[in-house]
């Protein structure tokens, strides 16, 4: 955090050259490892003298192949997001959103929700800070829905397990839910369902300012690495356990086991999945491997996606935190609108795919 500001062209500073070549080498290594995963998994099985023909072998192969794959992707995505975060602080996002009108403001808020660093325990200060700076209530909600739902861990895991198309689709659908929910809440004019002290605070308008000076690239990349260390350090165990459980299901649960429960012809599976998912609190890392295994056994993608979205986007602890600033009716509307949006996504997925 100390160190002199660089005065001459950035790319030529020795420290920058060191960092850039380091990142480049790491990227090459990642790609090399990533493209050899299948070979590695097959080879390990061979050495251990296990074939994929039986259940245990199949489950083991799944495990050896999936764990490094997901961890590698997660490493890459989380690092990139850590660097992106240094460009978009909550303060800067607030400046960008303040005074925006409904509509375009919602689209912007949902988009910024993807790249702005956010954690649910800061939800309350952020919420009030936005309102104080003149960000409309509906626009604030668009941000509040998108920020936790479309996070880098979820995207990286979806990418790793289902491919980039599903990850992209999840992102688009998440944006849709966030924008739509914010628009609806904005239309309902629910400002008076903010807690009274929040309404009073709102009268004391704050002129939003983005503080912070431009950072040098080594600092940004350093932030990326500390983000990486923190996130991957937190979720790797979940991933290993989750993939382990997934591997078990993969190897031992009969094919098409889930079709009758979560297949696409079972219309009620989407709402039930959302109802179960809303109060649940789990990070994306814990839930996804299980989700993948369910899909492999015939559960429909839309149903599973809706389940995942509702687990990540809404949770009982978050509601309790938000209760400090929202009256019960607004919380109910918030949860209801988001849940309905997610169900729609689930149905659309099941119909289209």
């Amino acid at each position: 955090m100390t160190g002199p500001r660089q005065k001459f062209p950035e790319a030529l500073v020795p420290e920058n050259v060191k960092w850039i070549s380091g990142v480049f080498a790491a990227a090459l290594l990642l790609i090399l490892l990533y493209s050899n995963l299948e070979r590695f998994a097959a080879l390990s099985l061979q050495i251990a003298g296990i074939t994929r023909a039986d259940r245990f072998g199949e489950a083991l192969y799944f495990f050896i192949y999936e764990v490094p794959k997901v961890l590698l992707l997660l490493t890459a995505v989380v690092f990139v997001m850590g660097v992106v975060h240094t460009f978009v602080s909550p303060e800067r996002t607030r400046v960008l959103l303040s005074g925006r009108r409904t509509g375009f403001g919602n689209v912007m808020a949902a988009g910024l929700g993807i790249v702005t660093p956010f954690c649910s325990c800061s939800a309350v200060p952020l919420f009030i800070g936005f309102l104080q700076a003149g960000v409309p209530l509906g626009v604030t909600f668009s941000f509040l829905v998108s920020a936790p739902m479309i996070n880098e861990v979820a995207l990286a895991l979806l990418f790793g397990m289902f491919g980039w198309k599903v990850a992209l689709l999840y992102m688009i659908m998440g944006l849709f839910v966030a924008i739509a929910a914010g628009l609806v809440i904005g239309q309902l004019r629910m400002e008076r369902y903010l807690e009274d002290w929040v309404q009073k605070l709102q009268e004391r308008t704050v002129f939003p300012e983005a503080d912070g000076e431009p950072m040098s690239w080594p600092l940004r990349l350093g932030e990326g690495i500390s983000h990486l260390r923190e996130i991957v350090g937190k979720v790797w165990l979940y991933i290993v356990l989750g993939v382990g459980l997934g591997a078990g299901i993969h190897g031992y649960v009969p094919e098409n086991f889930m079709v009758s429960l979560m297949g696409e012809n079972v219309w009620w599976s989407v709402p039930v999945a959302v109802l179960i998912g809303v109060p649940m609190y789990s990070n994306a890392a814990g839930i996804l491997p299980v989700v993948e295994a369910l899909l492999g056994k015939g559960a429909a993608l839309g149903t599973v996606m809706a389940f995942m979205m509702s687990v990540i986007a809404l949770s009982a602890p978050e509601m309790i935190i938000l209760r400090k600033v929202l009256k019960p009716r607004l919380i109910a509307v918030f949860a209801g609108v988001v849940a309905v949006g997610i169900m729609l996504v689930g149905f659309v997925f099941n119909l289209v795919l």
Partner: protein
Amino acid sequence: MKKVKILGSGCGKCNQLADAVKAVIASEGIEASVEKVEDIQQIMAYNILSTPALVVDEKVLCKGRVPSHEELKELLTNGPKGCCGNHGSSNCC
């Protein structure tokens, strides 16, 4: 005597910050009182968007992350250099 406040609604990172600050104060022999502010209305008076935040003598020095031991030492002894906590780091609870 410095008045140090840790703002945060009792999340994991807030406790981490409080412990880190206490450790620095103890090891450097800084004369300071440490208070944890968990009440959200009081927290909002400091106009911050992310917790935990470190406040020394009513000035917000750092927010949204837990600085390293070295950085905390710098902040608590010399005050802000104008480079802490403004980078939108995601290191929060």
